[in-house]
């Protein structure tokens, strides 16, 4: 039986204005993500994968269609509600880690907790816990520049989980990593999915990397879903 869908999009579209030309990055995407599933979104560069993930993460707003996450209509939210959704509803991980270079690993993980008004002591405790969960306890007080790529991405994953989101959105999280480290990161995400029931949507242009762990694979080309396969 299919699990309850936590993410549901209907006829989702996004167009950008490049100069005077309207470019469709995403067209008529209707898909569902079941709760607790590991979903891989694949496609070549420019196929609209990142655009889709930004829309799901509430970083961007669609030009057409709707997005529903856990019963809430993301596509209709105002700026403040979207910020709250990004804070609590969905955690995001990026290809380039996007850590704040001036802050230590621990402080980076604390960042979402600061915006969630968690007090300092509790923040410290939770951030330390999260770093431990991604296996970086002993690197907590290092700045990103002193960490390897894999370590930085682990910090980013810990940060994405800080406020206990129901879904984790990862945009090419292995793109800047060597293949061994890439496999480690995918393994980490798969572990979080398996052990904690975290719903993961991961974008990758390398289908081979995610094949092993993904429950569902959604393939995009030119902004449209060309195929979707799932396994129980």
């Amino acid at each position, binding site marked *: 039986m299919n699990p309850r869908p936590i993410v549901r999009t209907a006829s989702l579209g996004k167009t950008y204005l490049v100069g005077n030309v309207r470019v469709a990055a995403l067209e008529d995407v209707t898909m569902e993500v079941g709760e607790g599933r590991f979903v891989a979104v694949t496609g070549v560069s420019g196929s609209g994968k990142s655009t889709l993930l*930004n829309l799901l*993460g509430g*970083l*961007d707003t669609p030009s057409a269609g709707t997005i529903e996450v856990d019963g809430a209509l993301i596509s209709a939210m105002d*700026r*403040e509600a979207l*910020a*709250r959704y*990004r*804070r*609590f509803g969905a955690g*995001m991980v*990026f290809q380039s880690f*996007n*850590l*704040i270079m*001036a802050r230590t690993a621990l402080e980076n993980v604390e*960042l*979402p907790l*600061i*915006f*969630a*008004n968690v*007090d300092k002591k509790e923040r410290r405790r939770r951030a330390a816990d999260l770093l431990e969960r991604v296996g970086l306890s002993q690197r907590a007080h290092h700045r990103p520049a002193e960490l390897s790529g894999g370590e930085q991405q682990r910090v980013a994953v810990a*940060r*994405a989980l*800080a*406020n206990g989101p129901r879904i984790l959105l990862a945009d090419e999280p292995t793109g800047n990593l060597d293949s061994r480290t890439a496999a480690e990161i995918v393994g980490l995400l798969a572990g979080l999915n398996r052990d904690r029931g975290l719903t993961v949507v991961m974008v990758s242009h390398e289908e081979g990397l995610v094949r092993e762990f993904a429950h569902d694979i959604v393939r995009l080309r030119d902004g449209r879903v060309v195929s979707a396969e799932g396994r129980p």
Partner: protein
Amino acid sequence: MRFADAVEFSLAGLRKRKLRTFLTASGVTIGIGALVSMISFGKGMQKNVTKAFNASGLFNTLMVLPAGPDPASGDPDDRPRPAAPRPGRSGPALDDAAVAEIARIPGVRLAYPDINIPALIGLEGEEEFRLIRVVPAAVAASRAVQVKWGRAYASDDEKGVIVSRTLVRRLGAGDPAAAVGKTLRVKSVSLDFGRLVAFALGGARSGQGLPLAEGAYDFPIVGVSDIQAFGGGPGLGSNDVLIPPGPARGIERLPITSVWDLFRMSGGRPGYSAVSATLGSLRDLEPVRSRVREMGFSTFALADEFAEVTRTFYVMDMILAAVGMIAIVVAALGIVNTMVMSILERFREIGVMKAVGAGDGDIRRIFFFESGAIGFLGGAAGCVLGWVTSLLINRVANLYLAGLGMPYVDYFAFPIWLFLGAAAFSLLVSLVSGIYPARRAARVDPVVALRHD
């Protein structure tokens, strides 16, 4: 985001770019420093002049002037003149009888004519031209005249003069204490009627010069008055030689001391150009004034004029503040510039913060506080800078003026509200400067920012 966290974020942001923060805050420091020293100078001047006014004792003095166009009156609307003496400009004469009558008005302690005798003053060979002021002994002994060395003359008939420290110095006798007891030679000029006739007949062609006669008189110096800052206000402190009425009568003089006298005298009317009436208290001013007006004279009271002075100082404060404001405006532009630069530099960081859940308000607050912190730090430093600069200028000015024999004066005043106000103003300016950058930072699109390298 909590207040304390926003402050911490802001300070962390500033610490990261120490030099730029320092330079931007320096702009604020200079602006606030200029403002503080400007205003403290204005306040200092005001304080000193008010003090001088008070010391002069002239608040209690009513000037009585002959009716007619009144050159001393600053505000004619205030003083409606009685209708009677108006026609033909021929009011009653301000003569000895009038002086005696004024002296009898209840509330008037003393009335004496203002007489200035132009004379060459000599002391041990040096000579200078001065107006000798005839002042009764009672006034000379009052706080209106501050005799510091020697004493004031004891009676109106004592043969002795009070000279100012300035004059003593000008005439080459350095130590004012030593000047007491020395003899002052007064050479007055008077019309020589014999030469006047010759002058009228021969005119300037004969090359004889003016038909004047000189008379020399010797007076012992009984007292030396101290120099008062700002001339001691418009009082007796500005006169270098004071003489009691008794011996003054013996000095022959030209009956002209000013163009105004000349003008008035040409009308053929005898009398004094002005009479000073010392009042028992300021409360007597109105009744005495109306009484004097009934007599047909016009009046002038310094107490009225002081309101004008206060207004003048208000304008002066505004002008000084405006000069300081220029620096503040420049500093404010510096803050805006720094903050906008900071947004461009931290574009990606803003995107990251938004991606992990920062709201527009959080971002706005971080940048707003950052700008506020620059203003607060700059403002606090500016208060110190303004204070130190003012003290330095005061020191140098006093050092220079001490060389000229002037007493020590604090040219700057530092009321506590000035510092509090300056710090608050600086904070306000920087917060206003932060509005645009903070809004702009909050509007950053996270998708664009995260794509940005």
